[in-house]
């Protein structure tokens, strides 16, 4: 299964620095990586959104959100445990460069 990126935009709060999440989004949009960007994983967890099952079922998923402990238990609380191989990148404690570097996203623009 191919690698997939899930980006959480944490729209209902300011805890994820706006410059970090915007820069990561720009770099994602400028790359040719496949991704799914969601407004707020917390809201999806509370609403038991079935899309979470799809994200969790994909062992190659890379989640770009906040603290890994929070993200893992949010998935658990929705009834869909994340696979152990899933990677979680924390936009609250890392810079956009660090997150994009870990995702292997190119620095500048490329094709859509």
């Amino acid at each position, binding site marked *: 299964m191919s690698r*997939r990126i899930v980006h959480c*935009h*944490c*729209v*209902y*709060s300011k*805890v994820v620095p706006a410059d970090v*999440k*915007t*820069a990561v*989004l*720009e*770099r*994602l*949009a*400028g790359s040719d990586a*496949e*991704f*799914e*960007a*969601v*407004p*707020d994983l*917390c*809201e*999806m*967890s*509370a*609403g*038991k*959104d*079935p*899309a*979470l099952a*799809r994200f969790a079922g994909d062992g190659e998923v890379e989640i770009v959100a*906040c*603290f*890994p*402990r*929070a*993200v893992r*238990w*949010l998935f*658990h*609380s929705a009834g869909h445990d994340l696979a152990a191989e899933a990677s979680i990148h924390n936009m*609250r*404690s890392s810079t956009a460069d660090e997150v994009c570097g870990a995702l292997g996203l190119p620095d*500048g*623009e490329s*094709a*859509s």
Partner: protein
Amino acid sequence: MKPREAARPGPSAPFGELHVAVEPGGFDGVDAAGRGAVLAALLEAGHPVSRKAGAGEGALARLGSDIGVVDRAPEQVVEDVAARREAAAAPAPGAWTPWFPVIDYDRCTNCMQCLSFCLFDVYAVDGEGRITVQNQEKCKTSCPACSRVCPEVAILFPKYKKGPINGDEVKAEDIASESMKVDISSLLGGDIYSALKERSGSAKKRFSTERDESKALLERKRCLKELKDKLDIPSEVLMSLPSAGDIEERARRARAKQEERIARSRSAQDQKETDGASAKEWDI
């Protein structure tokens, strides 16, 4: 004890599959900043966006063939998507702030203190006798009070500003830290409500000799604000906190009822009845 509060509106219906798809080439002619701005505007308006093979199937809208992006302001793109969402009678993005506790079961010991402490029926016990967060929408926005009560630092609020409550790793010094100790002893070691009344009473007495009762009220407000700021707990919640004795008694009753139910719940029917029992249903 205060009456239980009505729930907040709650999360919107699942929308994860009602996404906006970016078609191959859908962003051609738009620079990285422009693409990022369109994505951010869509997400901020509550629309998930997907760019992957087959994303166009079942999508609410496709950036490319349905909705153009080149030379258009992000707001225009959002308006077009919102119109499609309305036309499809799809649920609107939530009017609810997703603020609620999340349990770290690697740490939780099922002591039931959170269930006993929360007066708003957020917590419940599942069919296996395990504490669970059942009514997220009943949680008070921005109130992390129950996380302060948990002796295992097992309750997270992912949108809280500070660790470890926000999900940051729990370190030994977090548990022992002065602020955590102060918070917990403020909540459990003393009865805030009586403390407030006492403090307000002595202030009243002092000020009554000066025939200025409004100052006593000010003193009480200042005291509330001090606690609110220190613990990040909204005053409406502070005023309805149970006392330390109440918490212990409710936790003891919850554990006793849980044991009693588990002992009885050998039949499938009984097991079903136990599912999702809240503090209210258990009359604790």
